[in-house]
């Protein structure tokens, strides 16, 4: 029995002592706090222009008379999709949103989604392009993307809030982290799938790397990249409720309120509004993507 006590590690997992663990957490947290106290303001200043832009855009959407905004959105959907069905659906969805008193929140959500998507594209596409050019870069970035996509977003909420407090910018960062991986992955994939012969032809005519990228790789990868953008938008929308936890206003907040107060109808209505926006974005961007590559399907004539 004595012997068995000595080999306790056989029955219980040998673990760090509780006090050491506490010490470790505390030390890391303290250092991080010190870091955020020292640099938090600088980082905030860095994001300032972005915040200003976001606020300006939000105000623009809210302060412009609703019927102008409505007309512009419907027009954009029409230009992108050229589909009467999708355009009419958009109109009906927006009217219902307005009628049920969710117009302002919807505009807030719309503005953060648009900005997050734009940011994800601006940051994600170059990363995807880099990945497509080198297997080493791809091998290095892929695990990071895995972490970004699978790490519960509440976890990286913590350091971001510690650093920047609550508000629009931390919300934006959280959403972008979560929504960016698809655009990176699909840019990379799309470029790697470009027909080798067409690329060879570009080489044979003496195209430089940049010329190959602009004339051949990006245009041929575009349908795949569009699918990535579509996914990015969907994921950004899925984060709206989480982002409202750290003070991002919009359709997420009433949902949050509904959860704490058990307002079923309020939750449902706002949830449906999110779904409606998602469907509008999805259908419009997909049919735009299809239209872009219609020349490929053209029958032999």
């Amino acid at each position, binding site marked *: 029995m004595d012997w068995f006590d000595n080999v306790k590690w056989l029955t219980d997992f040998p673990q760090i002592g509780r006090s050491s663990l506490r010490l470790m957490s505390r030390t890391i947290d303290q250092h991080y706090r010190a870091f955020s106290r020292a640099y938090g303001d600088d980082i905030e200043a860095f994001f300032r222009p972005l915040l200003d832009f976001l606020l300006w855009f939000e105000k623009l959407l809210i302060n412009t008379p609703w019927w102008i905004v409505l007309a512009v959105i419907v027009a954009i959907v029409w230009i992108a999709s050229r589909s009467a069905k999708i355009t009419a659906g958009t109109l009906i969805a927006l009217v219902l949103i307005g009628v049920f008193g969710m117009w302002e929140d919807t505009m807030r959500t719309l503005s953060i989604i648009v900005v997050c998507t734009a940011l994800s594209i601006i940051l994600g596409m170059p990363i995807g392009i880099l990945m497509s050019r080198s297997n080493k870069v791809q091998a290095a970035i892929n695990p990071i993307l895995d972490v970004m996509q699978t790490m519960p977003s509440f976890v990286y909420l913590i350091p971001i809030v510690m650093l920047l407090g609550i508000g629009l910018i931390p919300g934006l960062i959280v959403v972008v982290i979560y929504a960016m991986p698809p655009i990176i992955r699909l840019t990379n994939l799309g470029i790697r799938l470009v*027909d080798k*012969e*067409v690329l*060879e*032809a570009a*080489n*044979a*005519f*003496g*195209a*430089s790397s940049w*010329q190959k990228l602009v*004339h*051949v790789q990006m*245009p*041929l990868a*575009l349908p795949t990249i569009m699918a990535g953008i579509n996914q990015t938008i969907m994921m950004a929308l899925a984060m709206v409720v989480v982002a409202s936890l750290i003070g991002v206003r919009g359709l997420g907040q009433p949902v949050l309120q509904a959860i704490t107060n058990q307002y079923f109808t309020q939750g449902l209505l706002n949830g449906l509004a999110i779904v409606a926006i998602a469907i509008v974005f999805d259908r419009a961007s997909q049919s735009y993507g299809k239209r872009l*590559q219609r*020349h*490929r*399907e*053209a*029958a*032999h*004539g």
Partner: protein
Amino acid sequence: MADEIAISIRDLYKIFGPNDKAHVDAVRRGMTKTELLAETQHVLGLKDINIDMPKGAIQVVMGLSGSGKSTLIRHINRLIEPTAGEIVIGEEDVLAMSDKRLRDFRRHTVSMVFQRFALLPHKTVIDNVSYGLNITGVPKPKQRETAAYWIDRVGLAGYEDNYPAQLSGGMQQRVGLARALATDAEILLMDEAFSALDPLIRMDMQQVLLDLQKELKKTIVFITHDLDEALRLGDRIAVLRDGEIVQQGTGQQIVLTPADDYISSFVKEVNRGRVIRVETVMTTPDEGPVVPEPGSVPVRRGTVIEEAAKKMSDKEVTRAHVIDPDTRQPIGLLTMRAIMAAMVMPLPADALTDEQIEALA
């Protein structure tokens, strides 16, 4: 044939694999493709290639699938890096070019037509044809003008604004050809350019190429696995097998004196009447000038015997004389009997004298 050399390939070796340079010597000492693969997992692509390609003429490289044709032609514009060897074009070794020089060389000196067309699917016909010029930075109006000219020359006028997917295979390859011609490169590489096309369309395209070539006099390297195509197009033909050249020469030389059984089996079924030329079967008197008999029909040197026979039977005569197109003097005599004999009887190689063999060139 004017014998100025446009492209000179010397001692070219290509081994596919991560450590290719290490195995060249073994291959030089005679290791075969199979042995190399078994012992080192490297694939022997090309072995000891030496070809001098004449300027302004069509050099055909022929061989079965996997014989290394695509590998060879891609060395000429260095889409594939060699393991060892030299490719000299106009005094310059292509394999020694810097990246920048190589890009320039590809923009101005060589252009290429691909087996599966390799057009840009998202661009219209005119934008595809302008592609090479666009890369070079030619001003837009000039691009359009040049592209429109070549689209017209390959018979696609009216299709400028179509997308490749809207065209048939033959039309797509016309676009490919126009794209290659538009850069005004003096060397044209064509890798099985017509192999993906139906037989009739293919004949059409061969004719298009021959007609253009009569006027343009480019140096063309044409890859094919089809002997008929090789004989129709090739001023000179090189036959490739398992990465090695097994025979080089004119179509006549290959057909009349195949170097080995491999080539014999290739040429067995060929229509000899369309290959053998009148000067090969004509006779010249031992002494004195060539005097055509009355009623004899004139045929130009270089005419194939099938055509000569047709001329003779149209005129209902059995005699013809061969004319030198430059001097317009008769240089030899032909009889229908000699033509028939040449058409049906395979000449055994050893039945020809060395002089006769030389005359085949």
